[in-house]
């Protein structure tokens, strides 16, 4: 590569200023919070889920390459183990935000439940005339209630 002749003599001071960094959308709090609300709304009995279940759904949503395989396995005996699933600390962080913002509450047996406000938020997303989060919503709707807490515990733990 050719070196560029830089007029260093002419420069007396160099200033460095920080530039904002790009950030993958999945690291924005509102994106994760919205997904958590959607999972609780569409995939959980009485809109309540354990941390394990939320992590499981996060894993599916995050692995577009695996989605077909995972979905196929859901119909039969699954082969998932806890080691296979990527446990994502971002989920816990997003849960903290969601809890602080009163979207979810924590039940007696340490599960997460969608609050009234959470329902409102999820409904706004689901009733949007522009299909916001359409891919994610389609996937969640296809899976539906097939992943129960009991099944997850039996197969994963």
């Amino acid at each position, binding site marked *: 590569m050719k070196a560029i002749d830089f007029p260093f003599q002419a420069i007396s001071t160099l200033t460095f200023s*920080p*530039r*904002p*960094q*790009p*950030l*993958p*959308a*999945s*690291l*924005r*709090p*509102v*994106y*994760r*919070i*919205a997904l958590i609300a959607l999972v609780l709304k569409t995939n959980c009995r009485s809109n309540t889920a354990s941390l394990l279940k939320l992590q499981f759904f996060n894993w599916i949503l995050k692995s*577009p390459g695996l989605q077909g395989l995972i979905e196929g396995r859901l119909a039969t005996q699954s082969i998932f183990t806890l080691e296979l699933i990527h446990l994502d600390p*971002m989920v816990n*962080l*997003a849960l903290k*935000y969601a809890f*602080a*913002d*009163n*979207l979810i509450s924590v039940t007696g047996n340490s599960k997460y439940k969608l609050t009234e*406000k959470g329902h*409102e*938020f999820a409904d*706004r*997303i689901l009733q*949007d005339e*522009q299909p*916001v*989060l359409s*891919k994610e919503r389609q996937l969640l709707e296809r899976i539906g209630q097939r992943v129960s807490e009991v099944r997850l515990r039996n197969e994963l733990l």
Partner: protein
Amino acid sequence: MRIRIHAFRVILATNQGPYGATALFDGGLNVIRAENTSGKSALINGMLYALGLEILVGKRGVEATKPVLRTIGDYDGQEFNVLESSVELEVANSKGDVITIRRYIAGERDERLVEVVHGPVVTGGQGSQYKVEPFFVGIGGAAQRERGFHRFLAEFLELELPYVKRFRGEDVPLYVECVAPLMFIEQIRGWSGIQATLTQSYGIRSVARLAVEHILNLDVIENEKRRIQITEEANRIREDWRGIRESMAYIASQVGGRLMNVPTGPVLVLPDDPWIAVSADGEDVTPLADLLVAKRCLLLESSGEETSEVAGSEELEARLDSQENELLVAQAELSQLRSDIRSEEDELRKLRDRLNFIKDDIQRNNDIKRLRNFGVETGLSVVQDRCPTCNQSIQDSLVPTESMAMGVEENISFLQTEAEAIELLISAGEERLTRLEGRKAGKSKVVANLRVTIRDLRSDLLENRDLSVAAIREQVHLQEEITRLEQLRDEFEEQTGRLRHIVERWQENRAMHSELPDDYFSDDDRRKLAALSECFAKNVELFGYRSTGVSRLHISEDNYRPVCDEFEVALGVSASDTIRMIWGYTLALLQVSLSHQGNHWGVVVFDEPEQQKMRETSSDALYAEIAQMQPQDFQVIIATSASVDVTSKRLDNLPHNLLEFGEKVIRPMQH
């Protein structure tokens, strides 16, 4: 003027018998006077409803009409229940043709149905001899489909609505709903600002500006449309050029050569003829035409050999040897090409994966924008970058970043730039790949031919025949090769012809582009805008506008709204001055349209203009200003609840048509 409202009638069938109201209008100033809560707005809203313009009230269908027209009302202490109701608006166009527009409110009839009676039903008495045509409003296509009421209305009134661009989809006529907020000032929301009842874009780009441009009949609409057409044609030309260039490059790769002298984008002049450079054995570069000549010479030579003595075995040995060497080299080259192709494909796959990821991420970022709106509506703190617990500002990121994270908008444009770069890389890679594939195909053929030749030479050596099989086969191959090259050459020439045609189209397109006016506004446009500025300033001064110096007010060329020293004046002026501005602006549009051949319908409706405890002198000035205009040119309908005394004093000495309704507008009807 394009429309003259002759009369409006409300007809209610109630459990107490028929109720209703009739209003007859003249040219010039019309004043509907009635007490507060007497049902004036029921009349005005009813007129909008009849025209299918109820969206100006902010609602669709019967919801937009006042309850007295569809549920319960009272008169003289007696309540009545509405069983069935309808409104009738009798209007004439500029040619004097009269129609009556009838639309149903309560009852069995579909609210989306509009009946057009071709005759003066209200003023001329009920007549069954008139033709009745059904139309629809309030569903998609009302402006365009044959049975759409607004399409009929536009034709009847000769509105000449321009076809305008939408954000997506095809062009549509500028909807009447977009123009009407400049002429019909409705009571509830109409007085909050200029075009206040234009609350949605209908998918039309800069709809608010277009509405004003249309009313003033500015040339910019036409110019802007031409500009867009020319740009679109330019894009099509670029697209066609790319397609032809690709197929030329494909032909070049078929003969194992490279396309020369075709720029990547359209040009005004093709500097040199396009040609195909064939690198024979990776050495010197020859044009395809020369290659053909060389092949033909070879064919001639070898057919000479055929008749001569069969070569001796020594010579055969030597040729076999050289051919085997050639085969080795060719095979090595072929395997090199294969591995090049594989790595190119790998690279492309990676790039495509990355592109897909970026596209997904752009989608997600767009989703986040909407999610934030929902979050704000639901009252979440996180979406406002505030900690829900301690209310301090937080980063919009789940991981701590060293420097600041980009905002969502910025992130999207960042990703878009990246996507564009990757798309460029991909198209360059694809081009390289086709070239490599072409070279591979050529090389495989060479290898196959060499193998066959070697086999033939071997059998010639063994059998010692009179006729060399190898020589004959070589001839056949040459013959085939020549035919194929000739075909490709012809195809190439055809494409070159098409390329020249595109050059012509491009010249035409660029010529049209250069003919577009440099200045956005035409001279006529400037005259109209200057007149609007002047007229507006004159009006508001008459009406007693105080907030800023009137001399500093003018109409912005950016959005056609009043500005004061380049700042939009809507904010920061007193409430009553906002009202004066709306009076002044709405009237100025009418006046300038009349004096400069604009497209104003010639009708203005003010529902309760005396808002915000307006000073009496201001209202006096408004009425006087309207009354001094030529009554045959226009119609202004004012609904007011100012007292009888004030109104009659105000109208004294002014030409006017007063409709006095007193306590109740809707009354029992006499038979």
